[in-house]
Each structure stands twice: as C-alpha cells, then as structure tokens.
C-alpha cells in the first residue's frame, strides 16, 4: 500500500517536472526558439520518407 502511494507520488512529480520543462522552454528568447524550430524542421524532414512531402527548411 505504502509502495503504491510512493509510486503515485513519483509519477505526480515526474509530470510536474515535465510541465516545468515545457514552461522553461516557453521562456527562451524568441531567437533561440527559432533555432530550435529549424532543428525540428530538419528532424521532421529526416523522418519523412516521401520526398514530395518534404518541406522547405528555413535558413536564418
């Protein structure tokens, strides 16, 4: 019983930490976020097998 309660608390903490992580990313300067966006575009294009669906990646 105590073990389950501990586990529940750990999961709760884990989700809280994830939430904080997203909020921290939201606070980054706009310019930094655009750099991350370009990484996201590269990752998304990298896993896209159809060349027709590949999108133009920004260059800044």
């Amino acid at each position, binding site marked *: 019983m105590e073990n389950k309660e501990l586990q529940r608390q750990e999961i709760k903490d884990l989700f809280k930490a994830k939430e904080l992580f*997203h909020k921290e990313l*939201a606070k980054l300067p*706009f*310019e930094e*976020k655009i750099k991350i*966006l370009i990484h*996201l575009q590269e990752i*998304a294009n990298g896993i896209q097998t159809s060349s027709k669906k590949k999108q*133009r990646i920004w260059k*800044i």
Partner: protein
Amino acid sequence: MEKTIEIINGLQKEGLIRNYAIGGGIATIFYIEPILTYDLDIFFIPSEEKRITTLSSIYDWLRKKGYKPYKEHIVIEEIPVQFIPVYNELIKEAVENSADKRYGKRKTRIVKAEYLIAIMLQTFRPKDRERIIKILDEAKIDMNYLEKILQKYNLKEKFDRFMRLYYGE
C-alpha cells in the same frame, strides 16, 4: 529571419501595407515552447487606396527584389511567407493591437496571445485546439482581456465549452 523581417517592414515603409503582425505558428512560438511549423504568416491591413490590388502589388514588389513564389507562399530570404489580408474584424483588431517586439535588431509586431486564442477558437482546426491548450498552459494570459475579446466576437460560449472539455472547468 532578421532580413525577412526587414523586407516585410519595407512593404510598410513603401505604403504597400498599412500595418502588419506576425500570426499563426510563429506568433504562437513567441509565447510557448517551439512547435513545428514551416511558414511565416503575416496578417496585414491593406493601404486604403490599394485595398483591392494589395496582394498582387505585394508580390510584384517582392518579385522585383528577386523573391520567388513557392506554393501559396513567397520565399523571402529562405523563409516561406504567407501574406493574409485581414479577413474579418477580429483579425483586423488583432493586428491593430499587436505587440511591438524585436527579432535581433529588427522591430516587428506579433499578435498578442489573447487574440491568438480568439483567432484559433474561430478557425478551430485540430492544430488550433492543441495550440490553445499549450498557450493556456505555458503563456501568461490576461484572462480579463481575453474575456473582453471573446465576448465582443461571440466566442465566450465556445471557449467555455472548450475549457469544460479539456480542463473539466
């Protein structure tokens, strides 16, 4: 992107547009963690005398500078930009009340988070719903300001339904 913004500011200086603000995914990224998007949406208020021909005059001006259309965009300094004339009162007001921001050394304008929520409630595609949740979770929202906008544009009921569905409120 600085150069892209400089060119867009040039459109305003030339009198081809009266005012503009960044909207869509890039405006959303300003307030939340980065999300995947591929274009830069520019909501603009046409110049009074050029109300009808504005899109073509924007494209002509940009073409003369060497920028080429790509699908429904025009690529300015390697960034696909979509120019969207303000197509209803809410979007026009969002542009008029947008926030002055800087990207690097360039001044620009970005639609405020409260207006983004209202606009996304209007368009209400699956990605809009997802973005509304992220903005509410990650950005600082002035709820009084948001409520005024929602009431003015008859979106309050839709917002309340949305909140009940996703937040159980």
